[in-house]
């Protein structure tokens, strides 16, 4: 499996071996640079494959984080995954990015995953003790999250770290989604060779655009 994610400042590409026994990392390339998704993702996946000793044609499927995440970077992963899937004729499975972070956290207790949505907001989702999503993903101001949040023990993700004082939850060390957890989050579908869901990004926000009202006056 090839796992990609560009919904956080991390540019993530990894090659993962998936069996009934679980997901095992073969190689990965991760760079934390919110401005470099477009530049680095394809070189990263090529390097990870080379280190794993595989060619793109060896892949059985591609897994890609579907966000939510700041729009510009988010699309890099999805369009890359879609194009690879088209050429290789392999299925591409979208995985909500916080689902993978929740698996990385492995706390065994209910959990909040909050990532940085910029504009002083977070994308957040809640998980039960088994790592199943129970709420979200949503986008909110950090101060508004506690009132909407089911009871959780910990928080993970970069948003949890940045707004730790506002959220008031102990922060566990799972910040960006790992390739292994991206694959693990889709393991059931991957192993069953299920028909993948549509490769649609979780934007959660509408585009900033204002409809003009009446004729635009150029003079006073």
């Amino acid at each position, binding site marked *: 499996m090839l796992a990609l994610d560009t919904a956080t400042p991390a540019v993530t590409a990894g090659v993962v071996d998936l069996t009934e026994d679980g997901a095992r990392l073969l190689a990965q390339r991760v760079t934390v640079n919110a401005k470099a998704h477009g530049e680095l*993702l394809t070189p990263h996946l090529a390097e990870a494959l080379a280190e794993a000793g595989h060619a793109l044609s060896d892949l059985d499927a591609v897994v890609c984080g579907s966000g939510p995440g700041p729009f510009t970077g988010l*699309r890099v992963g999805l369009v890359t995954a*879609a194009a690879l899937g088209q050429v290789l004729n392999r299925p591409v499975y979208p995985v909500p990015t916080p689902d993978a972070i929740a698996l990385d956290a492995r706390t065994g207790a209910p959990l909040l995953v909050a990532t940085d949505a910029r504009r002083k907001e977070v994308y957040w989702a809640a998980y039960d003790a088994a790592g199943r999503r129970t709420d979200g993903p949503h986008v909110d101001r950090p101060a508004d999250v506690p009132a909407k949040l089911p009871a959780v023990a910990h928080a993970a993700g970069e948003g949890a770290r940045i707004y730790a004082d506002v959220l008031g939850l102990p922060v566990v060390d799972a910040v960006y989604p790992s390739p292994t957890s991206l694959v693990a989050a889709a393991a059931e579908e991957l192993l069953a060779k299920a028909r993948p869901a549509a490769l649609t990004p979780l934007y959660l926000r509408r585009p900033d655009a204002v409809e003009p009202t009446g004729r635009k006056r150029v003079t006073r």
Partner: protein
Amino acid sequence: MTDRLILGIESSCDETGVGIVRLGPDGALELLADQVASSVEEHARFGGVVPEVASRAHLEAMVPTMRRAVEEAGVELSDVDAIAVTAGPGLAGALLVGVSAAKAYAAALGKPLYGVNHLAGHVAADTLQHGPLPARCVALLVSGGHSQLLLVEGLAEKITELGSTVDDAAGEAYDKVARLLDLPYPGGPPIDRLAKTGDGCAIAFPRGLTGPRDAKYDFSFSGLKTSVARWVERRERAGEEVPLADVAASFQEAVADVLTAKAIRACQDLGVDTLVISGGVAANSRLSGLAAERCAAAGIELRVPRPRLCTDNGAMIAALGAHLVAAGAPPSPLDLSTVPGLPVGTVQLF
């Protein structure tokens, strides 16, 4: 050497374009596919291109447009020999979708990637219809996003900017004036239609930057737009009817007059006998009509590609890629960046 297939991907503004061109051993180009998905209707109610709306549409359209292009060409993706993509100039988020896709296609196919200049692509589009360009020509690029006068001394070798707009692009002026006259977006086609029933000499709108001390090859359309607005509002305030067709025709006359006068002056100053006009506004009937008249009078050969090739498309990017491949240019690296403000002199990005 045998034929090579060059794929072109364009996503710098609101059109997702994929084109496929066959490059013959003699350098001849044959257009095999030209597929475009446009998000223009989604922008219409905003009166201009909304970058985030365009970027979202590119992501949705990329794979389906690629599929249609491959079908139209009757080839397999694995037959493609090189991939060219617009790396700039354009909207940052929009460019990123096309470049990211192009990298993935290049990596998956194991074929070289060429990150190229959108503006040079507009000039290259003409070679798909009229064959190779002469050693030197002047190109006038006019669209909603650009208004530029270029000296082209080889598509793969040297493109120099002679002048450009100092404010609005010509197409932008059309959009703004259309809104003023309650015409739909984009403004080019409705103004062109309305102008045909009006008198272009009815109102003497100003010709920007045409004074003796003004930059010879630069354009300015902002003053023209303001002057049209003032004229219309003065009429309305006086309770008089606004002769819409005359306003449209007179505005269009001012735009066409300045563009063609400066382009022909550049040809004459530089001793160039070929003028290429490309970009979305090249389809404007008065611009092409006046250019034909003035070129004929000045003994200049005018080349205007058909409208479909003038607007943003993947075929022009494939054509430019083919010129680079034919010239033996090295491919761009897979960590290629997008450059929203890419200057026209940089034909290929590394």
